[in-house]
């Protein structure tokens, strides 16, 4: 890594620059492949979702899907600053920020948000903005801040070089780590689900909870190399909530991520990348989207449970215990 201009607001590393560790593996021992998942392709991974863990903000949530861990806080609605330059806003202004922790991926991330983080932020904005009843909060601002503490990426695949006798080593592919559509798609789907939970925890009125879903279509490795993609349709495998490691002998074809409002059957954000054949009209795309919707529906179940749990917690807290004495008595102030 080349030495960069020092950041005067932070402690800087030695100016000579440091490099991420590179592992050396002899070819005979073979690559350490990422773990293959044993779950069926139509099942999403277990989601842990809990809301209201941060007391100093309006709403918050914490989500965990296998290695992905993210914390979301919702600030506001709070009034816009009263300056002459602030334009009038009839509807609440929503801002979304997504930031990976420096230690969240195999390659250390910088402190300043990079393009992929900004991209995730704008997609999250699209997914949420339609669901919030922004007209109820004029002249105010709602901020959704996502901090990703841990994520799944290619791991050892990118920071290991293999050496054979008399052959040069293959260079590491650091800069692609965690940037693939599948890796970002899983993160975005998690962000959408957790952000809805946090917004609900904040008591912000919404039309419906948005849940995120992601699905990837895989084809046989030979199918892709053959004559055309169209031939491989019969071997197509749809995987909901895909892990980084592709199924045995398969290569990814296309990934679809969406934000889905189950009660209204509406898609608020759609992101398809990869090869989606057009030979059969939109059938291929429809299938992929349906798979992603199915994944989002499964996530919605968890979202509902989390919301219910939170309501139950509040009811229990205020229902069973006596209201605090000092809360009920007024204080007299003279003079």
């Amino acid at each position, binding site marked *: 890594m080349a030495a960069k201009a020092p950041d005067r607001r932070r402690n800087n*590393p*030695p100016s000579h620059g440091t490099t991420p*560790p590179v*592992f050396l593996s002899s070819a005979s021992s073979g690559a350490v492949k990422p773990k293959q998942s044993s779950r069926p392709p139509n099942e999403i991974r277990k989601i842990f979702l809990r809301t209201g863990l941060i007391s*100093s903000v309006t709403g918050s949530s914490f989500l965990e899907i296998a290695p992905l861990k993210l914390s979301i806080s919702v600030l506001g609605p709070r009034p816009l600053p009263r300056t002459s330059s602030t334009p009038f806003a009839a509807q609440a202004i929503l801002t979304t920020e997504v930031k990976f*922790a420096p230690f969240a991926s195999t390659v250390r991330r910088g402190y300043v948000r990079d393009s992929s983080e900004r991209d995730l932020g704008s997609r999250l904005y699209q997914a949420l903005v339609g669901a919030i009843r922004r007209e109820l909060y004029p002249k105010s601002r709602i901020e959704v*801040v996502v901090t990703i503490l841990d994520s799944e990426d290619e791991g050892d695949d990118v920071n290991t070089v293999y050496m054979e006798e008399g052959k040069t080593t293959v260079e590491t592919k650091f800069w692609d780590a965690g940037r693939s559509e599948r890796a970002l798609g899983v993160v975005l789907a998690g962000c959408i689900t957790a952000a809805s939970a946090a917004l609900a925890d904040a008591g912000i009125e919404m039309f419906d909870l948005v849940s995120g879903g992601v699905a990837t279509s895989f084809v046989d490795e030979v199918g892709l190399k053959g004559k055309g993609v169209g031939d491989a349709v019969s071997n197509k495998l749809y995987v909901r909530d895909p892990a980084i490691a592709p199924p045995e002998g398969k290569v990814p074809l296309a990934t679809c991520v969406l934000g889905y409002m189950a009660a209204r059957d509406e898609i608020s954000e759609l992101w398809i990348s990869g090869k989606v054949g057009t030979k059969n009209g939109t059938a291929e795309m429809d299938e992929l989207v349906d798979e992603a919707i199915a994944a989002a529906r499964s996530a919605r179940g968890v979202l509902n449970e989390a919301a219910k749990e939170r309501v139950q917690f509040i009811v229990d807290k205020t229902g069973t215990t006596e209201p605090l004495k000092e809360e009920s008595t007024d*204080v007299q*102030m*003279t003079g």
Partner: protein
Amino acid sequence: MPTLIRQPNSGERQPPPLTFSTSLFRQISPALYLQRHLLNNPPTRPNGRNPSQCRDFTLTTNSLSHAHGSAVVRSGDTAVVCGIRGEILTIAPGDDPSRFESYNGSPTSAIHACGSRGAGGASWGGLVVPNVELSTGCSKKYPLGPPGGLAQTLSDQLHELVNVTKLVSLDSLRIYDGDNDTTSKMKIKGYWSLYIDVLCISLDGNILDAAWYAIVAALKSSKLPFASWNQIEERVFCDPSRYHPISLRQSLPFTTTFALVPVPASAGGEVGEVALLLNDPDSYEEDEACEILTILSTTDLGTAQGDFSQLSLGKLRTRVEKIEKRGGWKLGISQIEDCTQLAASKAARYIHTLAKEQLTPM
């Protein structure tokens, strides 16, 4: 329960008293609200603790998959996540590693003055780089965006603490040439540089103690891959199957922070003001504090190492390494002595929790 002292009715008609709810009182007059609580007998803080009581804390180590070491510390409503990642600093052919050795071996904190920020970036500087991130939506009060005053101060304080305490010994950070004799300094080909990032997830006061504890715990649980210089490729490679811990100093230092809150007191007919010490303040108390006292101390548990329940304060051997006091003049020597006692018991609890966490299999 807060009650205001009513003035004696002096005959003339007084206006009807203004009444409002406690929660409103808390909002509009925090100083008075806090004082009324502390004037109770025994003094009780608004959060229900007594002045010398600290919050319960929990520690979880190595829960992150990509960090070389990590710790999550939750103390009351303050929660921090600390992740440590090692990166390799390769020494260029013309460089002299002894400059590094002297920097990190320097006995005083003088070197800190020309630290990594002031001089416009580290030249040959600390291999340990702590940074605190508060722009995570951890509190309503803290704005998003680049690190503000508090985050910069904290990063600097932690950097100084790492340097002053010589927490990390250089032994485990050196990278040597191949399988050669590891005692010769000439064979040093590089160093591990440790990036310590502390993310504040939830902020409710006393972030320094939580952050420092998270750093110590994360360092203690870290495992670095075994790295060596490869002569054929002329670069440093790591062995994916061998890991080694980071060697830390023998007795681990811990910080304990107190807030001083002025309370009116009448002694012998004279109305004055005394300062009350609050252990482990939350953000509401921090806002009203006139002084903040931080004690860095190490504690030797002695014979009671294994059994925390049999631990008594008298048996603890404590060494104060650093006292930092910000602002004010109200704090006396005797109070500082009391604080060191409290700091010792807190440090003992820290060590105990850390040892327990290390023992539990992951």
